[in-house]
Every structure is written in C-alpha cells, then in structure tokens.
C-alpha cells in the first residue's frame, strides 16, 4: 500500500532535531566555521539523538531524515562528527571496531577527506579494503567548505593494509551515498527557505523580489526540485530498510538528484539575494560552497554514474515492476 507518512518516531525525531538545529546550530554556524569545529555543547546535544547508532538501530530512512534536519542547522561539522557515518555499512563488512574511519570511493593515492581519521575504507568495483592511516602524512586542507570538520589530505603512501573483502559494490556505495544525499538536501532546504524569506521581504522596482515573474517561476521550480529530490532520497532509504534487491541503484540515482538539486537551489539562493548573497553577512554563500564541495566527495556524480554503467539498463521498475 502506498504510504508517504514517516513512522511516528521518525517524524518526532525530525521535529526535535530541527528545533535543536535551528536553536543551537544555525545562529552560531559562522563561529563553528571560524573555529574549525563544532563546540562540545553541540556534540553533546546531538548525543541525545544517538545519531551515530541511528542507521543500525532505526534504519536508513531515519538516518536520512535526521541528517537532513541537522544539515538544515549546520552541515559544516557533520563529516567530522558523524563517525562512521557514510562508512557504517562498509565498517560492518570489514568487521573493524574502530569507528574513526573515513570512506573513500575509488582508487586513490592521496585522499581528501573532510576530517582526520585513523582508518580508511576504500571501495572500488566489488572490493573493499581497510587501511590504517594513523601513520600517514596528513596535511590540513585549504577546503572551500566544511571547515568545522577540520578537513585534511592524507597521503596513503605509508598506509598499512588491514584487509580486503569482496562486496556488492553498488549496494555498499549506494547505501553510503544516502549520507551525502541527505546532507545535501538539508543544505538546499536551508538556502531555499532563507532566500525565499528574503525575496518576499526585499523590495526591488516597486515590488518584492519574489513577485517578479522570473524569480517567482524560479522559486516554484526549485520548490519542485527540492521536494522531488527529498522524496527520491527517502524512497531510496526506505528500499534499503525493506531490503529491496536494487536499493543501491535507486540510492545512487537519488544521490544524483540530491547533487543536482543542491547545486541549482543553492545557486538560486545566492542569486535571489544578489550582491548580498555573495558576502558573509548572509549564509547563502556558505550553503553554495557546501553543496558544491559535498557533491565532490565520495566519488561524486561521476562515481555514481560509473557504478550505474552495468545495471541501469536491466534494473526493473521499483514500483510497477
């Protein structure tokens, strides 16, 4: 039976996290960015929501909903805070018990990740490898975003292999892609709501910015894109929870939706504010940077498309069969 309501506990979690994110995170996100970390009280506040265990205990949909809500407040520190985060499924496969791990998609000698870690899980094709990166050279990254996660580059030259496992690559990476997808939606929603409120208030040429047809139509289109991407990401997460066979395909497709939507919506956010959108007096420039940066991590769009190469033609329709 078709049903779009969130389970009651997930809806309650979303509401509580949104309150926390708006009250405790959004007003101070510039400070977090400057200080390159979320302060202890934010981390402590989030502990109450058991974010790190949510995936395992409540499922992929609950985790996606929670991540979107937090990112609505501030996504900047999420990559550093939420360990193992996107690596959770891979960590289970590896049997490693150290959650201080980053997930890397694709073969690389130098990994750029949004925070320090002791372990790196690297997945390409139908393979997963675990490396000890605690003794690797680490350089602070001059990243364009996610400063509050203290981003770094790690040279894998001295990484010690801790094992390698065969995996269903698309399933594992599709599940992981739900993480950036949900965060991208939170970023996009934040930008959209802020920019629309501004555009309704700011008068240009005798009427609100939002009432000029070019802007009104762009806002309508962005609203549709955002809602469609949210439904796609949640549907994909739901398919993992329902243990559906092709969940990795739909999660990877939803990830592409989330990337493209976050780009276009955060771009519109800056555009609606005009010059004000480009300066740090308003947060839309931060969300614009974050959307671009996050959609490059975890293999980016190209990695997802590469994963879909062999399956997109044959995967059956997820609803009608």
């Amino acid at each position, binding site marked *: 039976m078709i049903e779009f309501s969130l389970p009651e506990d997930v809806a309650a979690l979303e509401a509580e996290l949104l309150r926390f994110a708006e009250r405790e995170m959004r007003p101070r996100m510039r400070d977090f960015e400057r200080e390159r970390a979320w302060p202890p009280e934010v981390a402590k506040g989030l502990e109450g929501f058991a974010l790190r265990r949510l995936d395992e205990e409540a499922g992929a949909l609950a985790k996606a909903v929670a991540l979107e809500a937090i990112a609505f407040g501030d996504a900047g520190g999420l990559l550093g805070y939420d360990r193992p985060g996107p690596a959770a499924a891979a960590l289970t496969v590896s049997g490693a018990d150290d959650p201080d791990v980053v997930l890397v998609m694709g073969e690389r000698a130098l990994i750029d990740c949004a925070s320090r870690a002791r372990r790196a899980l690297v997945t390409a094709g139908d393979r997963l490898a675990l490396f000890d990166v605690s003794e690797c050279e680490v350089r602070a990254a001059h990243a364009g975003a996610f400063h509050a996660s203290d981003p770094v580059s790690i040279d894998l030259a001295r990484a010690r292999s801790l094992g390698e496992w065969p995996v269903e690559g698309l399933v594992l990476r599709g599940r992981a892609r739900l993480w950036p997808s949900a965060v991208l939606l939170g970023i996009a929603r934040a930008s959209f709501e802020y920019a629309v409120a501004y555009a309704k208030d700011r008068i240009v040429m005798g009427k609100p910015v939002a009432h000029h047809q070019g802007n009104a*139509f762009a806002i309508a289109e962005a609203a549709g894109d955002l809602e469609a991407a949210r439904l796609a990401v949640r*549907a994909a997460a739901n398919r993992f929870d329902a243990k559906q066979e092709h969940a990795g395909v739909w999660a990877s497709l939803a990830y592409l939706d989330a990337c493209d939507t976050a780009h276009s919506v955060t771009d519109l956010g800056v555009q609606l504010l005009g010059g004000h959108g480009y300066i740090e007096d308003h947060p839309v420039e931060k969300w614009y940077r974050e959307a671009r940066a996050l959609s490059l991590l975890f293999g980016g769009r190209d990695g997802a498309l590469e994963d879909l190469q062999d399956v997109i033609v044959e995967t059956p329709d997820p609803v009608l069969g």
Partner: protein
Amino acid sequence: MNLTLDDRTRQTLGLIRALGASHFRPLGLEADARHEPLPPGHPFFEMIWRSGYGASGLAADESEGGAPSFRHVRACVLAEEASYWDRGVAVSLPGPGLGGPPVSLMGTPEQRERFLGIFRDRSGPPLWAAFAMTEPGAGSDVARIRTRCRRDGEHWVLDGQKMFSSNSKRASWVVVFATVDPSMGRAGHRAFVVERGTPGFEVIKVERKMGVRAYETCSFVLEDCRVPAENLLGGEDYYASREGFKGAMASFNATRPIIAANAVGIARAAFDVAAAFVREEYPKNGLRRALAIERLADMRRRIERSRLLCLRAAWMLDRDEPNALEASLAKMHAAPAARTAVSLALEILGEAGVLRDRLLEKLYRDVKVLDIVEGTQQVQRVVVARRLVGLPSE
C-alpha cells in the same frame, strides 16, 4: 513510508499491461498513422467495457458499492500504466473520464449516483462522459470563461462555446463550466451536467492534432441549451461564496496528478525503447555507451522523481488533505520531465529514432500535450508561486 502496491491495484495493473501490449499500443500506432480517432463502435471498446475497466486510468472503484468513488493513488498508478502503452487510447476508453472527478467531488449523492452509476452497468453499449472548461478566449485563465448560464424556472439556460473537450462528441454527458456573470470572475462560476441529446448542444469540430490521435478532441457550442436545474452540480447552496470556482480547482487537484502520471508512463515507454536499443545495438564499452548510460540514468531519475510527486499528491487527496500545491508541483515537474526523457531516448537512438522506430517519434509528439492540458507548466508555476511567496493575481 511504503511504496508497494496493494494486490488489487497490482491485479488491475496486470490487466492493463496485457491489454496494453495486445491492444493499446497497436491501436494507438494505427490511429496515429491514420490520423483518426478510434470510432465509438470499435470492437475494442465493447471488449474493454465488458471487462469492467474504467477510463483513462480513472477506474471506477466498484467494489465498495453505491456510486463509484475515485481512489487517487490507484488512479495514478493505472493512468501511468495505460499511458505507458498509449496515452491516446487510454483517454479514448469508455468511462467517466475527466468528467468523473468534478461529479465525484462537487456532486450531491443523488447526482453521483445518477451520473456515475451508469458506468456500473456494463450490459449495454460502452458509455463515455466528458469535461469542458476551456473556451476559445479562456484557456489557462479559467476565471475568464464567457459561457453564460441563467436560471429560467426549473432550468438553467446555457450559451457559449467550448473547445479542447475530450470525447464530448460520444459522451452521455459533459460537465460544463459556465458563469452567471463574467464580471463576477470566479465567484460567478457554475458547473452543469449537460446530457447527450439536450437541444442546443452541438459538437462543431473534432480537432486534427500533432499527437494523441486515438481520442477525439472536440469543440462544441451551447445555444439556448436548457439544462434541468437538478443538473447543477452540488445544487444552489454549493455556490455560496466562491465554491463554484473552488470546485473546479478541487477537480484540478484530482486530475493534475493523473495527467502527471500519464507523463510518467510516456517517459517509461521511452526509457524502455532506449534501454532495449542500448542493450541490442550499442557497443559494450566506449564513450558512446557511457553517454547513453548517463542519458538513461537521467531518464530514470526523471521518471522516479515525477512518479513520487504524482503519488504523493494523490495520496494526500485520498487522505482528504489539501493538495493544491503538491498537485501543481507534480504536474509542473512531470510533464517537462517526460518530454526531456523522450528527447533523451531519441538522442540515444539517433536517426533510428525518427526513421525506424515509429513509436518513439510518436511519443515525442504525444508527450507535449501533457505540458499544456489541465494547466500549462506556466500556470503551475503561478499556482506554486502564489502559495509559496504570495504572488499576487494581478
């Protein structure tokens, strides 16, 4: 959240799938080639009428007794599948068609039984119904309709002209929107059921169209057309305040997701053609294949997103939740998404798409109408912007 179909819907889906392959698709191609709609006496209509299937995916829900109601999620799913096989044939099917939702949503219980109940009895010949809002001078701006209605004793008298009305030439009745006074704008709107044979009702033209040729798109005139007072949908009280126009809008909230679902069906059909072409005729590696895969992925994303928007809008309506915004979002998104999907499929087939594969080229013509009917994408943007940012009417 749950995106699995119930057994009954799946069963009906199987029926449409079988009929689609055996009849919808070939008949649609035939009507397209002949540039003529399927005639009402076509044996296919008799066969499908006897099978119990409704029309346009708006399958009458006959299991609950009484007047048929419209379960909107189910209608969306079935509309998508019917359109997958041929949207033109789907619209041509006997049943209440787009006339169903306004009667269902605005009509009194007696009217619902009188007008929708006739579709339960399948022992006679196939029956159709229709809907008419658009006029030569009022398309997107439905508040500007000029077809007049005035009360005269136990009748209402209608005068005016309607166009772009599907199946009205063969319909047993047509829901016609008219106004008591054009200067009243939307507050003056009234909806009537005009029955076949009513003096003064005359179909004057069946349009020649770029696509979706299997069904008739008609223009008709109403000249001193006397309609019994009991055919005013909802009765006099319904039109206190702005209920008449709200009724039309409520009808759109039900039909826009259906039209959007039609678009999803066409996009799916295009995907399947393109995927088969890649499977059978593309090299297994290389740049061309990579480009095709990206296009196929793009198509699947458009299909998935659009379908979710349709189903969500319909699901809200089934729960009696206001869904005007969601219905417009679905329509705004799905129609252009489907057009792009068909275009991407044509890119994949290249010249074979227009020279060898007649279906895909037809789909490209068919799909465009969905970006126009039930409110163009510009209208949907206006509706969405009004709700999100208070875009003023003037």
